[in-house]
């Protein structure tokens, strides 16, 4: 009877450097990670991409003269 592959823990995470192949990026999982998580060829895995870089919100409203966000002022009736 074939040994049942251990299911990967949902938190299993590894950082890899993708390799360009034509217009695609191929991701190779390191052998020790594959062993540790019990991954097998043909077994579906979910890939979550979170590239490190500048966040789209940073500086988006830099052109607006700064005044700190004040919830109390926003909720008051007066524009003072």
């Amino acid at each position: 009877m074939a040994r049942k592959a251990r299911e990967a823990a949902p938190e299993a995470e590894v950082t890899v450097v993708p390799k360009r192949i034509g217009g695609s990026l191929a991701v190779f999982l390191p052998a020790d990670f594959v062993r540790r998580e019990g991954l097998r060829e043909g077994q579906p895995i979910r890939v979550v991409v979170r590239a490190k870089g500048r966040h789209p919100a940073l500086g988006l409203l830099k052109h607006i003269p700064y005044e700190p966000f004040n919830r109390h002022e926003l909720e008051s009736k007066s524009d003072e």
Partner: protein
Amino acid sequence: MNDIVLFDSWAWWEVLEETPAGRLLAERYLEARRVRVLTVDYTLAEVAAKLARIDRAQDIEGALDAISTADMVPITSEIAALAATLQVELRKENGDASVGDAVMLAAARLHGIVLISGDPCYAGQRDVRAS
């Protein structure tokens, strides 16, 4: 294990304006690989309202799209119920504390995470920090 924090409108505004505090928040939380940022959905309304109030309605869509990259937390009945009692508590220290202030703190507490805010009404709260 990943860190999880909750940004309120103050925190997002600092990031959107790219103040020194905002740059730090972006680097420490938004751009960090192992940090998950949550935001209460009401924050979208607050930031939109602020932009409308200062005649920058044309910036609302872009700002909300950028904030929506965070994981949205809806105001559930649990959050609303806790917020009700928290507002009373906050008002003992600061008479200006609003329902909105209490909702943000309640959402963070129910998730067991830190609220990122520089709002003075949270002064002395153990689970709120501005950076």
